[in-house]
Structures are given as C-alpha cells and as structure tokens.
C-alpha cells in the first residue's frame, strides 16, 4: 500500500521535522530541559512570537506584507502595561481603535491600490511614536490577569505548549476550514475570480487586516504577561521574525498559500534556535546568526523535498 500525502501535508513535514530535530538536539545537549519546567522555559517567549506570526500570515494571505508588525506589537505592549492595567475601559477602547485603524489601512491599500510595504512602513513610525508617547522610559505593570494566564501551570503539559497548540488549531480552523478563510485565500490566489463570484474584496481585505490586528494585540498582551513591564522597543524584532516564521512554516509570499500550523511551528523553531546555541555553549554573539542559519538549512531541505516530489511525479 502506498501512502498518499496531500501537498499541504508535505508542506508541513519539513517544518515539523526541523522542530523535532532541533528539540532532540537540545534534549541531548541538556537532558534537564526534558521536563515540565524545562519545556516551559524553552518555549515561553514563543507564544507572543507565534501570535505575531499568525498576524503576519493573515496579511500575507492576501498578498500583502506588514513591515509594522514589530512596532505595532510594541505599541500594544505599552498600552497593556499602562492603560489596560490602570483603566481597563480606556485600554479596551484604544485596542478597538487600533483594530479599526488596521481595517482602515486595509481599505486604504485596496482603494488607492497602494503597495502595502510602503503604507505599513509609514505606520511603523506611527506606532513607534505612539509607543514612545505612552512610555518614554521602560516601565508600566502587566495586568494581573495577563500575568496569571501566562504564568499559569496547567497539569501535565506546560502553558507554552498548550497555548501554541490552541493558537495553531484555532487559526487552522479559521483559515483552512471556514468559508471566511477560503475567501481570504482566494483573494491571495485569484482576486478577480473571488470578485466575480460575488464577494467584496474590499470587505475581505478590511476583515483580514482587522483580524491580523486582533492577533497582534494578543501577541502584545502575551508578551507583557511574560515580561511584566514594557518599553517602546520591546518587540521590534517581531517584524522580521514573523515573516521568517511564516516562510519557515511553508507559507508563500503570494498566491494565498499559507499554513497556520506551519507558521506556529516556524515561530517555535526560531525561538528554539536561540536556546540551542546557548546549550552548545557558543557565545551569545551568534544567537541571531543561528536563526539565520536554521532558516537557510530548512529552506534548503524544502527545496530538496520539492525536487523529490517532482521526480516522483515524472516517474
């Protein structure tokens, strides 16, 4: 019997495999990491990155790119550590306003046919500016509930893993299984045919951007829940990390080809890459470099797999 795999499954194999190999190497180097606490420590910071990666993935689904992801998450972190903690009502209002702004951006980009890279580039300055206005110096306090959620200890499986699985499942059903997700991916694949089928691309784009903002807001809150305080530059790295995570997880820049589960795995892999090096006792200078190297290795593997797939088809 020959096992037939769908191309979506094949896309998932490489990221899953690389995460497993990385995890096994970490366990081999540091057996003590193989417990409840160890796993939690390894993957703690992956939760906000995974949420930001899902947000970026949504934008990439409609063939756009968000270069303001890092500064937006930083801004949200600042809101969470200030207003959301002291005056929840105002805090929630700000967050809703931020979602509205994102939806507005989607509309603007669509109506004026602007390159998303430039618009979000401009927005990255705006969010950074607002973050600095809120918190000129690092500080603030995490709301009790955010702290409680992020440091909670569910039985058997650590919080970080539970959260990652929930994020992956939820976004998988939203993007791959719901009719809303089909329209989104359709806009990325062939906008014209979606339009002819009677759907509003404008509404789809606005909804995508709003939803991306929602996930990015969760990322900001989760981050503050972990760090307990915020500053205006806290998540600037997320812009590049989130793009890398999506690609690592098997997503493409165009055509609406994305994989939510893959994106979460990609984010976990990138987080683990950093810890891997410290277990190898290589100086922390090379931490960022290791993330680059792992990205290259995984993409090389994917190329190899694609070639094998093609050969099989020809045979």
């Amino acid at each position, binding site marked *: 019997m020959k096992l037939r795999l769908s191309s979506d499954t094949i896309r998932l194999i490489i990221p899953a495999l690389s995460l497993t190999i990385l995890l096994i190497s970490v366990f081999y180097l540091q057996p003590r990491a193989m417990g409840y606490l160890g796993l939690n420590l390894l993957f703690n910071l992956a939760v906000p990155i995974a949420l930001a990666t899902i947000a970026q993935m949504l934008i990439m689904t409609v063939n756009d790119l968000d270069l303001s992801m890092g500064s937006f998450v930083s801004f949200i972190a600042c809101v969470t550590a200030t207003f959301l903690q002291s005056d929840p009502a105002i805090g929630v209002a700000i967050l809703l306003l931020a979602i509205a702004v994102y939806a507005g951006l989607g509309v603007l980009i669509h109506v*004026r046919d602007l390159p998303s890279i430039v618009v979000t580039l401009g927005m990255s300055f705006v969010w950074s500016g607002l973050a600095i206005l809120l918190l000129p110096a690092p500080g603030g306090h995490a709301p009790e509930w955010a702290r409680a959620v992020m440091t909670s200890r569910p039985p058997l499986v650590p919080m970080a893993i539970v959260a990652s699985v929930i994020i992956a499942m939820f976004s998988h059903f939203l993007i791959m299984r719901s009719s809303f997700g089909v329209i989104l991916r359709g806009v990325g694949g062939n906008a014209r045919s979606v339009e002819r089928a009677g759907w509003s691309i404008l509404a789809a784009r606005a909804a995508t951007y709003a939803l991306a903002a929602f996930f990015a807001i969760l990322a900001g809150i989760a981050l503050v829940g972990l760090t307990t305080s915020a500053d205006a530059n806290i998540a600037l790295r997320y812009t590049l990390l989130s793009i890398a995570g999506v690609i690592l997880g098997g997503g493409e820049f165009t055509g609406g080809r994305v994989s939510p589960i893959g994106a979460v795995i990609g984010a976990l892999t990138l987080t683990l890459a950093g810890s891997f090096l410290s277990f190898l006792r290589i100086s922390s200078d090379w931490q960022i470099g290791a993330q680059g190297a792992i990205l290259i290795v995984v993409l090389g593997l994917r190329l190899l797999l694609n070639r094998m797939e093609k050969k099989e088809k020809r045979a």
Partner: protein
Amino acid sequence: MTTLMALTRKPWIWSFVAAFLVWFVTILFTGGASTLGLSQAALTFAAFSIVVGIGQMFVITLGPGNIDLCVPATMTLAGTVSLKFMDGQDSMIVFGLLVAIAVGVAVGIGNYALIKLLRIPPIIATLSMSFIVQSTAIWTNRGLRIKPPEILASFTTETTLGVPDVAILALILSLLAYVLLQRTVYGRWAAAIGQSINAARMAGIPVDGVRFATYVLCAVLAAICGYLLASFSGGAALNMGQEYLLMSIAVVVIGGTAVAGGDSNVAGIWGASLFMFLVVSMLNTYGFGAGIRLVMTGLIIIGVIVVAGGRSLRNH
C-alpha cells in the same frame, strides 16, 4: 508653461517639492537664522540615505519581491571591520575602503547564492543573510571602540565651498548610478527584467548575471555607506545601520521609483532623502518630542504615497 506641465508629470518632482516645502516652513520658523546650517546638515545626512538608497533602488528595479533586507547588517559589518583594519591610521584609509568594499562583495555574493541555489524569495534570503552578517558584526565588534583615521573623519564632517564632502561624494555616485541605469546595457537589462522576467529571458538577457551583479552592487554601496557613516560618527556601533532598513526603502519609493520594479529614477532619491531628514528637523525646530516626531514622519510618508499614488504591479 509646457515645460512646467511636463515637469509635474515626472515622478521624482514631488519629492523635491515636498522637501522644499518642509525646508521653507522650517526656515520660516527660525526667521532664516540657520538656513546655511540646516541645508548643510540636510545634505550631509541625506547623503548617507542616498548612497544606500541607490543600491536598494537597483534591487527594487529587478521586479516584484526583490528587496535587500541585509542593508543594515552590511553597513554595520563593513563599518566595524574597516575601522578595525585602519586602526586609526591615516595611511590605511584606502585600504580600509577596499576592505569595506570586499565585505560588500562577499555579502552580495552570499545573498545571491542563497537566492539562486536555494530558490528562496529574496526577502527571506537577504533576511537570513542579515542575521548571519549581524552576528558576525557583533562578534568582531566585541568591546571595540576604534576611532576613525583623522583625515577620513574630517573628510566626512567638513565642507567644500559650503557643500558637505559626503554630499559631493553622493552626487558623484548618483551620477554614476544614473549613467549605469539609463545609458548602459546593464541598466536597460535590469529594467527589462523588472518589467517581465520571462520576456527578458526569452530576449536572451543574461538574467542571472544581471541579478547577481545587482545584489553585489547594492551590498557594496551599503558597505561604502557603512564605512563613511562609521567615520562620520567617530566609530562603528552595532545599531548604526538599524534605521537605514526602512529608510532605504522609503527614499526609493517616495522618490517615485515603481515598487513593482522596472521603472526607476535616481533623482527622486535625492528629493526623498532630503525630505526625510528635513521633516525630522522641522518637527525638532517646532519643539515636538520624539514620539510626535515619529508619528508625524509616518503620517507624512503615508500622505506622500497616497497623494503621489502607488504605482504597484496591478497598474502595470
């Protein structure tokens, strides 16, 4: 009148109009007191964005998806390594420049090797490369605080006939870039690839060669900029390239180059670079804090792109 009409149709004119307006408004506030100082500072700081921007422009010319995210890391590494080699000695200035260029060539080759061999999108290839280059820079820079050679430092900060030296250098590089883009086979090839890579391939254009040369060119220009910037600011810092990632893309796009590629112009980069610096100094002059300044900068970038109209792939 007809010439005026023709001018308004040039995509680069708007960045100059915007730059002039901002300059004028700033001068208005100071009552003309610091006109010369402001203009010189604008030219100096714009010069750095112009040098990086030209490289980024050539890459963006290659078509959708082509962008070099490795620029900041290349600048940092080139600045760090060249200062280390020069070790503050005036006799080593030329050698230091060659080292910087060599760093640029190496990064450029690495970038294109990843794009070509692994067939990954340029954004991700240059992103992965930038992680590695940045790590190398951190490693070489460890606890390093080397002063630039005296002559080089004064060259980057002094003026000739009232014009900053670095601006003159940027002008020379821009003229070369203009000739390269508009008057050489290479430039025509690059634009052709940006308009349609398949058509270019069928026309017998050496697509790989041109793309390779372009990525190397971009990295070399970033390296030269890092070399100058490190000398200008009295030493290399690990975050010295940071703001040039967004800046290099912003000046290219605001300058009227098509984001979808295939249609570029050098002149607009000057307008856009001056504009970007002048906006910040205008807001400074009016006494706004860092937060408001950033917000305004962002809104102005979006405003410019909305008014000037995005020329994306769908319009082509």
